[in-house]
């Protein structure tokens, strides 16, 4: 049970990472992938909290939830502003900070 759920969260995490790296199109997908990462991490926290019978993991998961919500809010706000300026949310052309 434990191993399976750990595997599941790891795969979830990897899928999130793959989403970040392979994504060329939109910033929204990027944000969603990050949400997926945080979700995988949260799942991991909860799993460990349950198996080690310790409440700190769950407390931490709660904190992560709030942080993820705040982060999503700020990220979406940035996205909206960005869209207002550029008229597109494609990250293929976000390369103003070249070396």
């Amino acid at each position, binding site marked *: 049970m434990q191993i399976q759920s750990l595997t599941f969260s790891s795969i979830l995490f*990897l899928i999130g*990472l*793959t989403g*970040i*790296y*392979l*994504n*060329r199109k939109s910033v929204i997908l*990027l944000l969603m992938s990050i949400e997926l990462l945080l979700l995988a991490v949260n799942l991991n926290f909860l799993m460990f909290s349950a198996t080690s019978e310790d409440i700190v993991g769950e407390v931490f998961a709660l904190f992560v939830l709030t942080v993820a919500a705040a982060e999503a809010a700020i990220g979406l706000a940035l996205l909206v502003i960005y869209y207002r300026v550029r008229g597109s949310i494609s*990250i*293929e052309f*976000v*390369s*103003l*900070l*070249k*070396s």
Partner: protein
Amino acid sequence: MYLCLVFLPLMGSLLTLTFGRFLGFRGAALLTTSCTFTAFVLSCVAFYEVALCASPCYIKLAPWFETELFDASWGFMFDTLTVVMLIVVTSVSTLVHLYSISYMAGDPHIPRFMSYLSVFTFFMLMLVTADNFVQLFFGWEGVGLASYLLINFWFTRLQANKAAIKAMMVNRVGDVGLALGIFGIFYFYKTTDYLTVFASTPTLMEASRPTMILLNMEVDALDAICILLFIGAVGKSAQLGLHTWLPDAMEGPTPVSALIHAATMVTAGVFLISRCSPVFEYAPTALVVVTFGGAMTCFFAATTGVVQNDLKRVIAYSTCSQLGYMIFACGLSNYSVGVFHLMNHAFFKALLFLGAGSVIHALADEQNMLKMGGVAKAIPFTYSMMFIGSLSLAGIPFLTGFYSKDVILEVAYAKYTIAGNFAYLLGSLCVAFTSYYSFRLLILTFLTPTQAHKSAIKVVEEASLLMSIPLVILAFGSIFVGYTFKDAFIGLGTNFWNNALFTLPQNTNLLESEYIPQASKMLPLVSIFLGAILALIINYTSPGISNILKTSTNGRLLYIFLNKRWLVDKVYNDVIGYPALKLGYHTTFKAIDKGILELIGPLGISKTVATLIVKLSRIQSGFVYHYAVIMLGGIVLLVAFSQIGVNFDLRLALIWLCAMWVF
């Protein structure tokens, strides 16, 4: 008195160099000449005390180096060999000083010239009076330096610069040999002091015959040391191999040539071998090398001198040839004969050079003999002086040159070894050549119909009084010195040398040389007259013969070969000089210094860093997903490295591989 003798010329030189501007032409000349003359007078006293009264004088002046094992002091040793050299050096130097006053009149740099002459004399005196090898080396390098300054006296002339640099460089080659020899002496004897070295040679070196590793070969130490010392002598005495600097040194003023070629610099090599005679005696191989070197030099220079057309160059080659005689006399263990010839040669060669200077002066600085001729009536005094000098050089009986040169050939014959016979043969041949070029010089300069410009002939005038006095004195020396000192120097059983020179009993052959066949004794004498008559026929009575000889196919080849000094300079330039410069520029400088070392050094590193930085900064493409990849890769690497340190697990490697695949 003994110290005054050495340091007076230095004082004169330094004073003239410092205050020459205030002393003026006359003052500078007077100061230096009187200093040198005083040194000469003191040398005469020293000669009387040391040589005639047989009381050598040793002075330790001051310590120079004093370390654990090595000590060299400023010390002076006056034995018979030294005082003989002193007489030669100071007398010729005084006369050259005197001569230069008039010869160089009108030159704007007389104080400098006089100062150089004096400093040359000083270094020569240091060389001959030293009591250890280190001080000898000081004098040795000093005369090299002074010769550079003197040859380069007219420093605005390109040829003079080149000749001076050549003299300096070629001498350095020999000096390296001398320095190595001194190192060898210190290594085996643990001292550089003459007396210790000479005293310990039979017991220390001869008994055990130590060997040393030289050029990866095991050689006999004594032979090696002596040959290295001989290499030093080769450079300084212009023996075959390193002789090329001497004829070029004619670029200096004529009194300089007289000083360098007659009395001082070139005699240093002969002096070194004579001084080290107690060491050379125990090195038979080295003696053979010395004999062959001297004999070949003698032959080479004599043949070359035969066809030279420059008045001074003829005399320079005759110097080279006579030095060959002295060297092989030393190589045959007859050091006293060599030194005797050295002294005699100093007188007549100085006379010849100063006489040549007088001729050149009279003929508006013309040095080419083919553009002279017919001035015997115009300058009879100079002619007679040159005549005496040439006869003495050729070895006409009862003149100075005869007494030493004939003895040299006789001892060579009486040696009955291969080296001795070789030297006798070449030496006898050279007598004919010597006589030929001496008379050719006289005839072309003074007797043939004149080839000079009318303007030059019109103003020909005899040498001034100041130039004449040295000539007269030297002429007297050229006539009488040989006869006067014969018995003292090389008389049978003479005790004149007082152990200053050493010959092993089995190497002594002065007595045998008295009993060689009559024909062998007469051969040199016949050669002299043969050469003289040939010179007269070819150059005077029927000059057509020389023309035919020169223009025939083989004759022309031979003439060019000899006139171009056996093409030695050409070979040196093409085989050594130019390849060395090319190697230095293309390989050492461009390929290594500016190539490899620059590449792995400053230039290479800076270029690599610059390109690397450009490449590194190109990673920052500005794309978010690139940054993300690099972040992930960095984390993976960090984890990987932290895990490798702790414990390496194959399962972890699997995870990394997965991560890398995602990457």
